[in-house]
């Protein structure tokens, strides 16, 4: 008769063995009385919306108080850490004779990049008051940065206590987070099955259906508010910066398409991008279509096809393409993909609001109609979804029309509304553009859009040059931003209050970027107003980041991260995994000394011998060396003579072979599924650049 300890030892041995003997395991499990866990209680709260402010009497951060027998709302002290996410209003007074409109929404409804100096609520109130339709009307700002669908549901439930005459709901960008929360293990298994049968198209459809259920469940609350309280509701459906917000490097990594070669896709992409450079839009269109056929989940094909349509004047087709491109992130490659209003959100909101007889302001359509010969872009948006002043003003004019219709049963034409008198100072607008440039840079946008915002900033207010120079200083230094004097000065000045009080400029530990493209764009913009700091920046880069005899590890964030986008996998590896055909590293040189590089690499999925990794310097016309692909970690050293270097930032581009052995039969759950779906082409454990001693 075995003791319990002996049985436990035997079971452990069986569990560690491969393959497993299920029968013997079951027998010992029973013997050791190892059972299923006590079944989870039916937790109704997990189904219902979370309660970030779990007090039914609260409205956001405001709690009810009584003064002279009248109920008003004041900010709750205990909620102080959350105050900065909401409007800076300490007290919501009792309702007066004025009509009262509540604005519920997320950062786009706050006026991100302008808040607290200018807000969407302020603009709406101004338009309504200027319309002459009301004898006094106020807009209570209940919008919150990063408002999720759960919290919005609570706000919808609670807001009637403020006695509104109307409610505006301006949200929908942040809701995808709820879909991620709701997916359970069963769903993941279904997704895997659907993917194996119907690829990305099937997965997208599955996820959209699930997402639709979430939105419908939320909208029941909105309908309840409208029905029970007889409050007219206007639903503002957010738009998206289709033209000028591009997918980033991570969102573009290729996916495994069963039975097809990744190399074909890579080849097509090169062809298409060359056609784009050559302005050969016919070839661009046909090649992009082939890219989509090979990988419908990758936004790059749609973006290129949209460019082709746009150049050919096929605007609606271009819009459709870009709308689809935007929605590919439902199968996210990136952990930091920015908020957006998916088509399914738009459609459900539109359908539900229409059926409930609510007013609808569909910014997606309104903005696209505003540019019949093009697509709405940077003129109306500062980034993916946050609006420019022009965008806010246009959106609020249409919202005012809808409110007038709801409150006065009066249908006006847009031209009948006078402009609001709200005017921003040039410095506020300039700061919004510079902050937008930073935000665009930190989430992977290209130098030209960064330059556009920097240029707009200096044109609006040349005085912003000082702030830009301070930004350049702390961004270029290796020291953590929070310790930098130039950052402290910006905070002290209050100059950058419009970007979360300036604290949005802080970076996670060990993830400081060098912001090369943003700084270059800033330098160009400053040069345009006669301020040339190119040499100063070059010197500072050399001082802070210059390759030296001790060596610089190019896997550190300033040298290989150009944005905060990271691949979706939950785990963080101790080495760099590359999922694109090429990876660029940046290093800083004084161009006087020769450099040596020590690379430790491997290609875990490479298919056959005699595949080569190519290493280029500066661009892909300058091949420096090529090395053999290798399954196991391999050390490889190579040199770079000073004659091939430029003073300042240089690039090392590593091109990986993409003929891979792919595992199509994933047994594991999410991480393994994603690993297989988005295969690794190469891995780097270390890449150290060193100067060679003179006369070596």
């Amino acid at each position, binding site marked *: 008769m075995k003791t319990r300890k002996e049985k436990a030892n035997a079971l452990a041995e069986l569990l*560690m063995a491969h393959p497993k003997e299920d029968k013997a*395991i079951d027998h010992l499990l029973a013997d*050791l009385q190892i059972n299923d866990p006590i079944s989870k209680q039916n937790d109704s709260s997990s189904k219902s919306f979370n309660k970030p402010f779990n007090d039914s009497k609260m409205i956001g951060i405001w709690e009810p108080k009584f003064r002279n027998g009248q109920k008003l709302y004041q900010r709750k002290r205990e909620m102080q850490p959350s105050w900065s996410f909401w409007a800076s209003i300490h007290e919501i007074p009792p309702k007066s004779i004025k009509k009262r409109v509540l604005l519920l929404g997320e950062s786009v409804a706050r006026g991100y990049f302008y808040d607290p100096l200018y807000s969407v609520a302020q603009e709406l109130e101004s338009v309504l008051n200027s319309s002459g339709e009301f004898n006094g009307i106020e807009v209570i700002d209940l919008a919150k940065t990063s408002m999720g669908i759960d919290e919005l549901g609570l706000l919808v439930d609670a807001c009637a206590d403020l006695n509104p005459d109307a409610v505006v709901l301006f949200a929908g960008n942040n809701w995808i987070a709820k879909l991620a929360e709701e997916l359970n293990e069963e769903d993941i298994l279904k997704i895997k099955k659907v993917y194996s049968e119907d690829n990305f198209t099937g997965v997208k459809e599955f996820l959209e259906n699930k997402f639709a259920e979430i939105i419908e469940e939320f909208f029941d609350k909105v309908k309840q508010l409208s029905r029970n309280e007889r409050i007219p509701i206007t639903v503002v459906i957010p738009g998206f910066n289709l033209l000028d917000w591009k997918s980033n490097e991570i969102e573009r990594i290729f996916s495994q398409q069963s039975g097809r070669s990744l190399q074909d896709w890579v080849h097509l992409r090169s062809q298409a991008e060359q056609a784009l450079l050559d302005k050969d839009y016919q070839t661009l269109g046909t090649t992009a279509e082939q890219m989509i056929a090979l990988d419908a989940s990758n936004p790059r094909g749609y973006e290129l096809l949209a460019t082709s349509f746009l150049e050919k004047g096929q605007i609606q087709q271009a819009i459709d393409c870009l709308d689809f491109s935007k929605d590919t992130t439902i199968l996210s490659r990136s952990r930091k993909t920015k908020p957006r209003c998916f088509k399914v959100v738009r459609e459900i909101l539109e359908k539900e609001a229409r059926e409930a007889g609510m007013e609808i302001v569909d910014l997606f359509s309104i903005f696209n109609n505003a540019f019949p010969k093009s697509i709405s872009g940077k003129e109306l948006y500062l980034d993916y979804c946050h609006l420019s002043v022009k965008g806010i003003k246009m959106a609020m004019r249409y919202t005012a029309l809808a409110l007038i219709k709801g409150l006065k049963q009066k249908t006006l034409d847009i031209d009948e509304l006078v402009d609001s008198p709200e005017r921003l100072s040039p410095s506020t607008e300039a700061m919004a553009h510079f902050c937008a440039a930073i935000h665009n840079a930190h989430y992977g946008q290209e130098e030209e859009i960064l330059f556009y915002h920097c240029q707009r900033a200096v044109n609006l207010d040349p005085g912003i040059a000082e702030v830009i120079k301070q930004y350049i200083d702390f961004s270029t230094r290796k*020291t953590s931003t929070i*310790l930098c004097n130039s950052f402290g000065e910006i905070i002290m000045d209050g100059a950058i209050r419009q970007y979360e009080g300036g*604290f949005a400029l802080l970076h996670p530990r060990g993830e400081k970027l060098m912001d090369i493209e943003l700084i270059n764009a800033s330098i160009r913009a400053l040069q345009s107003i006669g301020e040339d700091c190119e040499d100063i920046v070059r010197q500072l880069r050399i*001082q802070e980041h210059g390759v030296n005899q001790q060596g610089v590890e190019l896997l550190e964030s300033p040298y290989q991260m150009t944005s905060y986008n990271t691949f979706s996998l939950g785990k963080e590896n101790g080495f760099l995994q590359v999922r694109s055909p090429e990876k660029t590293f940046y290093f800083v040189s004084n161009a006087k000394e020769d450099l040596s590089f020590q690379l430790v690499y491997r290609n875990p999925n490479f298919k056959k011998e005699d595949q080569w990794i190519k290493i280029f310097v500066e661009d892909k016309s300058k091949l420096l060396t090529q090395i053999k692909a290798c399954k196991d970690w391999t050390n490889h050293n190579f040199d770079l003579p000073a004659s091939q270097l430029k003073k300042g930032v240089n690039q090392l581009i590593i091109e990986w072979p993409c003929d891979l052995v792919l595992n199509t039969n994933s047994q594991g759950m999410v991480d393994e599924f994603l690993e297989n779906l988005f295969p690794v082409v190469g891995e780097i*454990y270390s890449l150290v650049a060193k100067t060679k001693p003179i006369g070596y």
Partner: protein
Amino acid sequence: MTTKPNIIGISALYHDAACCILKEGQLVAAAEEERFTRIKFDPSIPQHALRYCLREAGLSIADIDCIAFYEDPQKKLARQLWSGVVNKEQIKQEQNFNKAEKEIRQILGFEGPIRYYDHHLSHAASTFYFSGFEDAAIFTVDGVGEWATTTYGTGEGKDINLFEEVHFPHSLGLLYSTITSYLGFRVNNGEYKVMGLAPYGVPKYEQEISQLITSLQDGQYELNLPFFDFIKGKRMYSDLLPELMGRPARKRESAIEQFHIDVAKSLQVVLESILIEKANYLYEKTQSPNLCMAGGVALNCVANGKILKNSKFEKLFVQPASNDAGGALGVATLAHVDLSGETPQKKAMKNVYLGPGYHSNDVIKLLKATNINFENYSEDNAAFLGETAKRLAEGKVIGWFSGRMEFGPRALGGRSILADPRNPRMKDRINAMVKKREGFRPFAPSAILEKVSEHFEIDHPSPFMLETCQVISKLELPAITHVDGSARLQTVSEADNRPYYLLLKAFDALTNCPILLNTSFNIRGEPIVCTPEDALKCFITTDIDCLSIEGIIIDRNQNNFDLLRIMLLNDQVKNSGIQHDVYTFV
């Protein structure tokens, strides 16, 4: 294998994750993962510590012959199955029970051979191979590894033989942790506090505590299990323990009463008694004059002193990193012996400065980015030491950052907070300004080796702060003298840590006191600082008077840190308000 191997030793996935590297048999680097991630007791597979170790050794992952892991996953799983801490659903879902292997392969990316050694064998190797003894008796005691909680063994040359084990759930470490929990302190964290509390008490509850454990024949003992409830991993003690002690458990952060202090003393007395008894048993079995100890319980320096005094052992070596972090050193040496057939380390471990070090240029570059005023003595070491000593003599509290970071839980003059031990208000001052810890806990002294016998009752070096001894100094040393007249001493020699030694000399020259109060350079709840930036942040957010860092002095009097302090405190709470990045189905 023609050349000596390069080996990585790892302890991880429970607490105190750490990594070390033996480059061709030489211990080149070792560090805890928490120092890099800034997560105290971080249990994660030590990817950052590994990267550091490789860089220090000038090796790449491709040069590593073997990774050695400090536990046997199968045995540990067996113990977990026996305990019932895993259920059937978890078992059915898990594809690979060897989490260590999974993470070494996936997160560290290592593709070579992995060797596993028992937890207590790792502890045993971590002490014997670094003791410098040709032969020794080995005594390891901690909470639990796989099954073993206490082991007895011998070391001779390259061979270690553990001949007897006490098995879970019977554990001296878990007894200590259980009472720690009963006294309202955190398990795996508050044991030091219980040890520090004990000298204030009388062993009034020795009889009650003795009821919790029974010594058996040879090395064996048994816990009286009805009083304990840790087997299922939910809580440490059963309802019977408060009943036995006649008082409910103390609530965390509530007032410490004399009762709690007396319980702590009683526990210490019972622990010492059983350790002495079992050490004597070990001596009888081995007849070796040398004793090597490791495991969490071996960090109880009061008990260690009593063992040496009350047994026939003549010499004692305790691994300075006796907690689980030290297991990394042990496994690396075990793998080295297996792969090369030789012991890697013939001499006793001289110091624990195995972590990262920084040059004064790094510090200057950092400071130049800030608006901090500083004095640069990097070209004049005598002036630097003189200025630092002068400030210490003036009663200032100094953040001291010098050379490579220590491996193990003690700050030994690499990353230390220093002060004048003669100042009667210094203990309260340091507690108020930085450590924020319980007032009863003593601070420890560092003293110049040559002068130590004038001030402390000790006749041998104690470089790792692992022994207590009586203070016999003519000087009044209230800041480092415990209530029972003892101190947990670090002796400092020029060979072990020259900069720190010279600072002590400079302080002695000014004050005729060759002793400094030395406590670890960290804020409560955070790991010891690792980089100059960590040190600067810690300095700014506390009230330490001065930071002496690689030839540079930053004086609080010459700076206004109000804004930086607010920003750094804010940084801990919030990084960005835009939190809804899209997560799709992951």
